Every structure is written in C-alpha cells, then in structure tokens.
C-alpha cells in the first residue's frame, strides 16, 4: 500500500534550511505506517533535500560552502537572458541556485520502523531553499505495512470529528477552513480538552472529541481574522485565507466557524462549558484590540504584554482546560485548578512562541514577529537592555526591511532577552504544575505536567 501527500512550506530567505522532520513524523503517525519507507522528492529545481544536524552555526557553514562552490552572480550562462527563449517576465537570476541544487539531492528515502522514523540522534531532515523566499512543495509517498485497525487514539477522534464537521458545511466556507486544518497546527487546545474531560466521573471520549474539535474550529476562526488584521501572507506554510481568497471571504469564513463552533458547544447542553468558552472568546477579541493599539508604542512593556497575552492566548487555554473538566462533571475545585493551570500554561506557551521567532532551527521564518510588529517579550526585554536597547528602539521606530529585521534579530539574540524570557516561561510552567498538586487527577498528572513542560522545551 502507498499513501501520497504534499508538504508545503514558505521560505523567508535566499538560502534556508527548513527543518521538516516533525512534519514527516506527523505524516507517518497520521497514515498509520508501521514498517516501511517514506520517499521525499523536491518539486523544484532550486530546492534540495538534506539529512544533517540541526545546528545554526553548521547551517551557516553550509551556506558558506555553497557560496564558495557556486558563487552568486558568477556569470552563469543561464542568467544571460539575451540567449534564452521563452523566459517568463519574472524569471529570476538564479544560475547559482540551480548549480547548488546539483550539489545536493532532490530525493530522500527514510526508513520507518515500529511507526517511527529511523534517524540517528543528531539527524534531522531539511528542505534546503536555494532561491528564496518562495512558497514550496515537496512530494511525499509512504509505502509499506500499515496498521490494519485504524487507531482510535484521542487525537484521531478529534481529526475524525473535524473532518466530519467540515464535510457537512458549504464548500465556500469549508474549503478554506479544511486547508487551514489540514496544514497542521499543534492541536494543544483540543488535547487539553480531551485530557481534562477524562478527569470527572462522566468521561465520554466521543463527547470530549466533539468539544475539542469545536474549540479547535473556534481557534482557527480567530486565526483567519487575525491573519487579515496582521496582513500575514502565510500560516502553517500555506497562504492565509485572506491572502488567497481576499478579506471579504476571510471575514465570512471566520464568522461562519465562530458561529458554528459556538452552536456545537451550545448543543452539548452544558451551560458551564458554553459560558467558559464564550468568556474566552470575548477576552480574545478584547485583547486583539489592545494588541493592535499597542503597536503604536511598539514594542511596549511587560505589563501591557501580559495583559494582551492573558486574553489573546491564555484565555482559550484556560477555557479548554475548564470546559473539558466541566463536561466530565469534575469537582468545581478541580475545574478551578485546571483553569489556572491552563492560564499559566497559555502565557508560558506564548512566551515560548515569541522565542521561536528568534530561533533559526525552528523551521519557521526568523524575525517574522518583528517584521509584522507583533507583541513579543524578547523584543520588549531587548529594547529595555542597557547595551543593545537604544539601537533596538531606534530600528523599531523606523521602517523594517530585511536588513533592519536581521539586525534586530541579532541584537535580541546577543543580549540577555531570550534567557530571561525562557526562565520566566519555565517558572510559569512550574507554577502551572503546582496548581495540579492539590487535586486528584486520576493518573493524568504526569501527562499534564509533560504537556506543560513541552510547551517551553520546543525552543530548547
């Protein structure tokens, strides 16, 4: 048996090592492949595939090596447009990128054993952009021995429920939402709903999956409007709804799923759950207004940052935890503790997400938050830093092109901002974990603790 798919991503730099290991792992897990092979093929003549170590300085060495072997603008015949026929109006000058691709491979085959990718301790899989920034695709085929019985892990119940809900909606709204949902995402909020819904005496995995899917739809609906507000071109490596289909469609799709998710939640017939999610949604919308208002005083201060993050991110984490527990009719003391756990985790998660913006090994474009003037704690701390602060503030006060974003990123990573944010995020996670100490969690404590710590570890 063979399963085929496409991996899409957006590069942000002329040369970039985009780590796609986790995305391949997700494909393997989702397909149910137990033992076999994953074949990857670049669909471009200026994107290669490499298996190597995810270490930023090493990536810089590779870039230097490629530049030495096939220097930019070294008089390539391919770049002499006067001697070529049928060239596009926007044909790039990229002879060097083609030559570099010749030095790499356009293919890779990875082994899968017992449902996991076979990779050495230091090995990661990279799509190597040689002529970015661009939107790119890799073809992927999985072949071998697949599980006969579909997994009914909680995660797959949510995916089934999401697919089921999108199947019955009008295509005009379902199609853009399906693209967003299928592009991935960490599914942390649904995971929290499902975990906490297993705590009370009325544990029903199917109902929990329904609620989890509704919360995920609601989260995605808010992202669709956010992307229009932030003028974001890409999300999860794919064009945003607003960029691809226009703001009118984006507003309509966001509204449809806002309404549908609130209806699905109301139809569950648990007033506490409905109120918890409705309050979170209101907090998200109010904080979005604050967030945009604060961009006038960018990068702002820690107090404003926390106020926005509590509404924008932490409120839905808290509601996800509380609503799962409420659905299973958990004791009110447990519901309250989980709500606090969710809120602290949400703030820590956002801080970790801010740090990802300055991490070249994250697989995401570096400096995107800076470019879009999104509220970011590392940037606030860098702007306050005695040494780099004046330059950071001066750069942020002007227009932000590639050079300025690159310099701001350098300054943030060169000062104590990132370690300071990390230590704050870690402390919040420990506070979240402490919230779990006084309540009976029916064996779920280690999972909730692990989930909280992994929220910060992803940038370790």
């Amino acid at each position: 048996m063979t399963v085929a798919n496409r991996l899409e991503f957006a590069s942000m730099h002329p040369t970039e090592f985009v780590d796609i290991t986790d995305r391949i792992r997700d494909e393997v897990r989702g397909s149910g492949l137990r033992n076999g092979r994953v074949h990857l093929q670049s669909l471009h003549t200026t994107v290669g595939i490499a298996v190597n170590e995810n270490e930023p300085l090493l990536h810089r060495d590779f870039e230097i090596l490629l530049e030495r072997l096939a220097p930019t603008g070294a008089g390539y015949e391919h770049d002499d447009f006067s001697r070529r026929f049928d060239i596009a109006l926007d044909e790039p000058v990229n002879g060097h990128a083609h030559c570099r691709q010749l030095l790499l491979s356009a293919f890779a085959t990875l082994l899968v054993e017992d449902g996991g990718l076979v990779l050495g301790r230091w090995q990661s899989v990279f799509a190597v952009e040689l002529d970015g920034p661009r939107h790119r695709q890799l073809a992927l085929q999985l072949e071998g021995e697949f599980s006969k019985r579909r997994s009914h892990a909680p995660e797959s119940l949510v995916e089934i429920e999401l697919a089921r809900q999108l199947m019955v909606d009008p295509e005009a709204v379902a199609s853009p939402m399906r693209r967003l949902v299928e592009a991935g995402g960490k599914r942390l909020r649904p995971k929290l709903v499902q975990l906490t819904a297993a705590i009370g005496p009325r544990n029903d995995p199917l109902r929990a999956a329904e609620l989890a899917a509704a919360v995920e739809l609601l989260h995605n609906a808010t992202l669709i409007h956010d992307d229009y507000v932030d003028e974001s071109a890409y999300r999860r490596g794919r064009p945003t709804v607003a960029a691809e289909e226009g703001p009118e469609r984006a507003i309509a799709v966001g509204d449809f799923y806002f309404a549908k998710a609130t209806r699905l939640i109301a139809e569950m017939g648990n007033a506490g759950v409905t109120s918890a999610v409705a309050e979170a949604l209101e907090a998200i919308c109010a904080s979005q207004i604050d967030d945009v208002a604060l961009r006038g005083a960018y990068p702002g201060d820690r107090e404003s940052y926390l106020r926005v993050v509590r509404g924008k991110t932490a409120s839905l984490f808290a509601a996800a935890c509380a609503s799962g527990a409420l659905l299973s009719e958990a004791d009110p003391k447990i519901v309250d503790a989980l709500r606090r756990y969710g809120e602290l985790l949400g703030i820590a998660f956002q801080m970790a997400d801010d740090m990802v913006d300055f991490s070249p090994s994250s697989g995401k474009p570096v400096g995107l938050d800076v470019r879009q003037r999104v509220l970011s704690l590392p940037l606030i701390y860098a702007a306050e830093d005695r040494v780099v602060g004046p330059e950071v503030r001066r750069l942020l006060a002007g227009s932000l092109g590639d050079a300025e974003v690159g310099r701001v990123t350098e300054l943030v990573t060169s000062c104590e901002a990132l370690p300071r944010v990390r230590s704050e995020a870690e402390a919040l996670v420990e506070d979240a974990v402490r919230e779990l100490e006084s309540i009976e969690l029916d064996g779920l404590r280690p999972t909730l603790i692990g989930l909280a710590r992994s929220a910060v570890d992803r940038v370790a």
Partner: protein
Amino acid sequence: MSVQVQALDQELDRLEGLWSDGLSETYRSYLDNVGHFASERQPKLALAAALIEVGLRLQGLGGRAATPTTLLMGDLCLARGSRLLADHAPLAVQVAFARAIESMSSAAASEQPAPATRPLLASSLGAGR
C-alpha cells in the same frame, strides 16, 4: 428604560462610542422581540441581538471588508453578543442565533444574497416558544 440601560453599563465596556452611534436605536428595536423572556433577561437579550447586528455590519459581512481595526470592533460585538446569549438565553435561542450567523456568512462567502439581518435575528429571539 434608564434602569434597563444602567443594567447594561458593564456590557458596554469599550463599546460606549457605538452606543451613541446607532447601537442604542438597534437595541431599542429588539426590545419588541424579547417580551416573552423574564424581565431581568430582556435588556440583555435585546442587547445581544443588537450587538450581533451591529457587529456584522461593522465587519462588512456580505459587502466590502472592514478595515482591520473596525473588523476587530465587529468581532468584539459578536463575541460579547454571543456571551450574553450563553449567559441569559435558552438553548434554542442560542442555537437559532448561531444558525442565523452561519446562514448569513455562508451566503456572503458564496457571494449569494444574504437574508436580511434584523428579521432573522428577531425571529431567532422567538426560537423555541
């Protein structure tokens, strides 16, 4: 009326400008549709309907998209209206409102004519009677 409006004060946080800019008239128009609810719920539910109508209008649903800042204000109106319904409306009314927004937004996404907002929301207030 003034007692009712006082009861709404905290629900108008951040939306005070909208109140004097048409939200109050929209609110009053829905008061005719909430007489069958307990008296303490009537202003909250009329306000919920008014916020949803004004929110959709601010967003430019079915027409030209609002600017980002106006969209966020529209989103807040919708979210607050929805929360008021969650706290004060029977399940049938909550579901009817959600379905009304679903029908208007799917029509807008398909570039089809959308049903008129006010009659649709007014009838949603009567759901389950």
